[in-house]
Every structure is written in C-alpha cells, then in structure tokens.
C-alpha cells in the first residue's frame, strides 16, 4: 500500500499559500500579535480548515494524507494561522459528537491533565496558541476519570498575554468556574496526542522543505569570489543536508499518516516525530550557515522558518521524551530489524 497524496490537492494548496502568505503577511501578523485573518477567511471560503474532518460532522472530508499536506503547505510559508490547532479542536468536537463550531478554534489540554467538574471549568491553561483570536478553546479534559471534551468560550476566561519565539501569541488562559460544554470522547487521550504529534511533524516537514528551497535559491544567487557561493563544495554540503532532511521528513510524515489512518501507528508517529525534529534542527543550522549574516536579520525570510522550527520541535512533548519513547519500542521489540521493517495492514502487525 502506498500513501499517496492527491497531487491536485497538493498543487492547489501550494498555490494558495504561495499566493496568499507573503513575508509581509507573516511579518504584520507577528507585529500585531495576532493571526492572518484575511488568509484564514479565504481558506475558509475554500473549506481548507475543515479538511480531515468527516463530512457528517460538518467537515470537508479528506484523508489524513490530505490533512498533513495542508499542514505542511501552510508551514512552508510560515503561515501565521491556527491550522493545526483548529483541526485538533474541530476533530475533538467531532469525536465528541458535538455540532460543528465555527472557527478559528484552538486547543488545550494536550500537555497537562485538566480536570473538569460538571459543566464548570477552573484551570490555568498555559500556552494556548491564538486563544485571543479563537471563537472557542477546545480542551482535552478528564471528568470523573473519563476522557472528555470541554468547550470554553473565551468570554468565560481571562487571558495573560505571552508570545512564543516565533511571535505566535500563546496566552495563558485562566478559567475560574467558567461555564463549559462537556461531552464524552469516543477516542482516547492517547489518540489525540498521537494525532497532534503527527501534525507537529507535518509542520516541521513543511518548514524543512521551505528552508531547503530558500537556501538553494539564495546560494545560487549570492556571489562571493566571483561565483555563486553554491558552487563551493562546503556550501553544497549544506544544501544537500537540507535536501536530505526535507525528503526524509516528508516521507516519514506521509507513512505515519498512513499508519495512523489504519489504526495504531504509535511507533510510526513517534519515530516520525523524532526524525522530523532532528532534521528540522539540523536543517536550520545548515540553512543559516549557508546564508551568512543576512539570514540572521528580521528583514530576510529565513528567520520566519527557523524560529518556527524552535517552537514546533518540542510542541506538546519534548524531543527527549519522544526519543525515550522510541527507545522503549526498540527495547521491547524482539528485534530492531523486525521493528523497523514491520509491515502494517488494517489493524494487523506482521
């Protein structure tokens, strides 16, 4: 089985983000401490934020492969909008059997346990991306030991502003006896976290591809010693490193999406999360090195990508925890060679 991405969809998404998300758009959103509302509106008119949500739940349908393509393409342009957070929130709402809530939505409760009692929530939710712009914060929570969804409207909470390294607003949301809509979840909290980790990997894969593309074109244009710096072997090494990272990350993300969509996929998602974070960090080093001083300035677009690498590499789970978890699989498997070559079909691991 291959996990093919629909090429028409990919082309459409590539065009959309390339046209709509210019460096000026990214810069302005960051300065204003908000998201790119115009881009979001246009994306809404094409139903893009609803890719990966079943149609009967008010979504646009589409596979996990489509979803990771959307997320990677948005990241490739450093789109300052909550495509990942909105998807996770909308997916939680759908899994809880609630009606569609108009977006943009954001999500919380992925890193820490949030307890809800009855239909009231008292909690401090750290780093809720774009909470100030979201119509609802969808919280993965526990109620009497069961996994539930709690939908919090921002009006019921106070926000303490914070910004991430990449300029994304990540306020702390403080709810004190705030009214919430609570519904039981038909999937486990582990399923939600796995999906989140897959989407983080897709973001990193998109960022890595963009760093590769930018570096390749810059090193072809920038001249020193009378020739393009890309003609020096040591600069070629950086471009090659980036190409390797971009290809490896994308293949992993697509395979992990395939594995997750047929059930299970935990090992694949963890391995992908480990690889994409390593590749993005290594890629950012190479991209900066090949650019020289200009890449270190706010005027030039590389920093939009590399600062995002820093925030996404450990979003929701630290790199070392992910790597520890992968190690756990290796230690438990009968053989390493068996683990990495296992073949998966609907629910069966051979």
């Amino acid at each position, binding site marked *: 089985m291959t996990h093919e991405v629909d090429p028409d969809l990919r082309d459409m998404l590539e065009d959309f983000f390339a046209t709509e998300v210019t460096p000026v758009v990214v810069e302005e959103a960051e300065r204003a401490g908000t998201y790119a509302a115009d881009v979001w509106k246009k994306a809404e008119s094409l139903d893009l934020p609803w890719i990966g949500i079943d149609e009967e739940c008010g979504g646009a349908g589409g596979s996990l492969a489509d979803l990771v393509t959307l997320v990677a393409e948005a990241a490739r342009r450093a789109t300052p909008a909550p495509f990942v957070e909105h998807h996770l929130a909308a997916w939680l709402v759908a899994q809880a059997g609630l009606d569609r809530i108009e977006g943009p939505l954001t999500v919380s409760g992925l*890193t820490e346990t949030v307890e809800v009692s009855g239909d009231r929530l008292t909690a401090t939710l750290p780093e809720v991306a774009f909470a100030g712009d979201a119509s609802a914060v969808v919280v993965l929570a526990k109620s009497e030991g069961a996994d539930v969804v709690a939908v919090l409207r921002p009006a019921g909470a106070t926000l303490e502003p*914070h*910004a*991430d*390294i990449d300029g994304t607003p990540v306020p702390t949301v403080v709810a004190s006896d705030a009214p919430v809509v609570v519904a039981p979840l038909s999937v486990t909290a582990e399923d939600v976290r796995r999906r989140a980790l897959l989407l983080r990997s897709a973001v990193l894969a998109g960022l890595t591809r963009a760093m590769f593309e930018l570096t390749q074109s810059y090193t072809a244009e920038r*001249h*020193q*010693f*009378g020739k393009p*710096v890309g003609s*020096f072997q*040591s*600069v070629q090494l950086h471009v090659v490193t980036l190409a390797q990272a971009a290809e490896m990350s994308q293949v992993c993300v697509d395979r992990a999406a395939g594995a997750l969509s047929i059930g299970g996929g935990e090992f694949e998602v963890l391995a992908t999360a480990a690889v994409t974070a390593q590749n993005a*960090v290594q890629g*950012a*080093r190479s991209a*900066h*090195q090949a650019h*020289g*001083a200009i*890449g*270190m*300035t*706010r*005027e030039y677009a590389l*920093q939009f990508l*590399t*600062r995002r690498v*820093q*925030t996404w*590499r*450990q*979003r929701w789970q*630290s*790199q*070392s*925890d992910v790597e520890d978890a992968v190690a756990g699989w290796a230690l438990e498997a009968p053989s390493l060679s068996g683990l990495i070559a296992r073949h998966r079909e609907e629910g069966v691991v051979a």
Partner: protein
Amino acid sequence: MRLTATELSPAERALKQEVREWLDERLPEGSYPLGLGMGGAVDPEFSRDLGAQGWIGMSLPSEYGGHGRTAVDRLVVVEELLARGAPVGYHWIADRQFGPGIAANGTEWQKETFLPGIASGEYSFSIGMSEPDSGSDLASVRTRAEQVDGGWRINGTKIWTTGAYTATHIVALLRTSEDRHRGMTQFIIDRHTPGLTVSPIEFIDGTKDFCELSFVDVFVPDDRRLGEVGAGWSQNTGELALERGGVDRWMSVMALLDRWVRQEAQRPGGHAAELGALTARAWAFRGMSLAVARMVDAGQYPVTEAALIKEMATRFEQDCTDLMVRRWGRTPRPDSDDPYERLLATAVQVAPAWTIRGGTNEILRSVISKGLRKNA
C-alpha cells in the same frame, strides 16, 4: 602545528581570585541583564568601572594608560567576565583587537589619542569590514577612501557592523587603490563624523546591535589613517589571532551551562554521559585557548591555531545550546519570568551566528588547511 600545554602561574591564579572577588561585589546575581559571552549587554558604566580596575587594555603600554600585562592575564580576566554573562558589549572589540591594533600600527599621536580612552573603558569600537557584496570575500570591499587635500573622502556602505550605534569609533577597512590585497587601508573614524549615517538592522531576536553604515562624502583627516596606505589587509590578518583564538569563541553559553549543570545535578537519573562529554570538551577548549594566549605572549601570530579552535569551539557552543533546549522539556519562552529561560530563548535564536561571525566555518576550514600545508 603543535600547541604546548600550559597552566596558570601563581600570579595569574591570584589575579583570577582578585577578579572574582571584585565581580562578586560589582555584579551580584540578578543586578544585570545576563548576556551571551561577547554579546553581553552594552553598559558604559560597567566598562568604566572595569577600566578603573585596570582590566581593559591590559596589554597596552603603561605610558598610554595600559598596564603592560600579558595575553594570558587578559584571558584570566575575560573568562571570569564571560562565565557570568557580564555586560561586556561596550568595550569588547576595543579591548580585544583595536587596542592592540593601534598599539602595533598606530602613530605616536594615535596612541596618545586613542589608547587611554580604550584602557579606561570610555571608548567603544566597532569593526567596519563587511559590505553588502563583500562578506567572506573581504578583499573585494568597494567602500572607497579617496585622497583629498589634508585627508580622505569616503563613500560607500558597510554592513553588519555590530554595536556601531552605541560605539564612539569605527575602524573601517577601505579601498584606496585597485590592487586587490594591497589596495586596502584601515581608518579610525569617529562615530559622529558628518556624512556617516548609522542605521540599525533588526536581528533575529529583535535586538538592534547590527548596523548599516552609509558614508556620503565623509571627510577624515590623514592622521586617522591606521598604518601605511595599502597595509590594511595584512594588519587585518594580524588581528585575526586575537579575534579568533580567545575564550570568547566557546564561552557564549557558559552562564547558561553553569546553571544548567546545577539543575541536572538535582535530577535523579540525569544524563551523566552527555554532561561528562560536554565538561571534558569545555576543559579541552580552555586548555587550547590558554596555549594560544601563551603563543601571543611569546610574540608569535597563531592565526592557524586560532582558526582551528574557533571552527570547532563555535560548533561546541551550538551543541551545548541544543542539548540544554532538549533537556528544558519545552521550547524556552522569551518572556519567561526566569532570566535563564529568557537567555536560553535568546541563545537558541542567535546560535547560528556563532559559526558565521568573525569568518564562517567554511572559510576557516580553508584557512586552517592552507596553514597546515604551509607549516608542513
């Protein structure tokens, strides 16, 4: 190439102790913004206080306000400063390279005019070498100084001039004739000379130390020319051992590491192997920088040795930063209440610059291999 192992003498160890005690008083924890090595905060008052201790321009001759001390003495002082992330930004470049540069190549008048202000910490110098089209290929600089009555007229653009906004002086490498290497001359230019416009360029972490310098018919008298006409390139090369071999090339994150190690010590089942590897390498780099400083004191120009150290030491700094970020458990927040977390958030953004500034690692590798071939 063969570096000679060396240790501090009793007198040098006493100096270290003296510096430590003074810094404990002058910079108690929490009283200053923590910095990343030579990128420490710009604080003219601290620089003046340090100068009053005799710890800036230490190697300069005493008749010009210096103290006739050694490169090793300077290493002893600066490693104490960098370990604390001290606010060294204002005087750093003057202390490290242009004090010695002017002492070596300047006229009597220049030594009398500039060295006392450098040693007292009153003068802040910037390096005006790079241009928009001349980075690694520094010998292609085009900003021109034309000889006119009584001096020189300068036109062109310099870029990436760290600290120019707060500097009092800029040493610029300018084109004075078409000869690629022998057509460049150094000039000492007042920051506030008419016709010179300094514009900040926002850095990746939002700071504004990076500057662009625009020269439009800037006049400088001939007495500001540093060294012979056409000697700029070789003077510049001579400064490189000072610029590249020092402890500042591997101590950018020392203030962070010190704190991180204390934290790791409290963590059960910590990551002892990584910590051990890191500690051993830091010790090794310290030994190499010390050996290079002894060579400078012996009158040698360890340019290849300095490049060799910088190329790997800057990668070490990046590896340390990455390790700390991984162990932090999440991405450090730039607006955290904890000053160390804030500094780590800065470090992770600016770390790529360490293998670029002062000559990229790619260029250093060819400098090293040329040097190795020459010495073979």
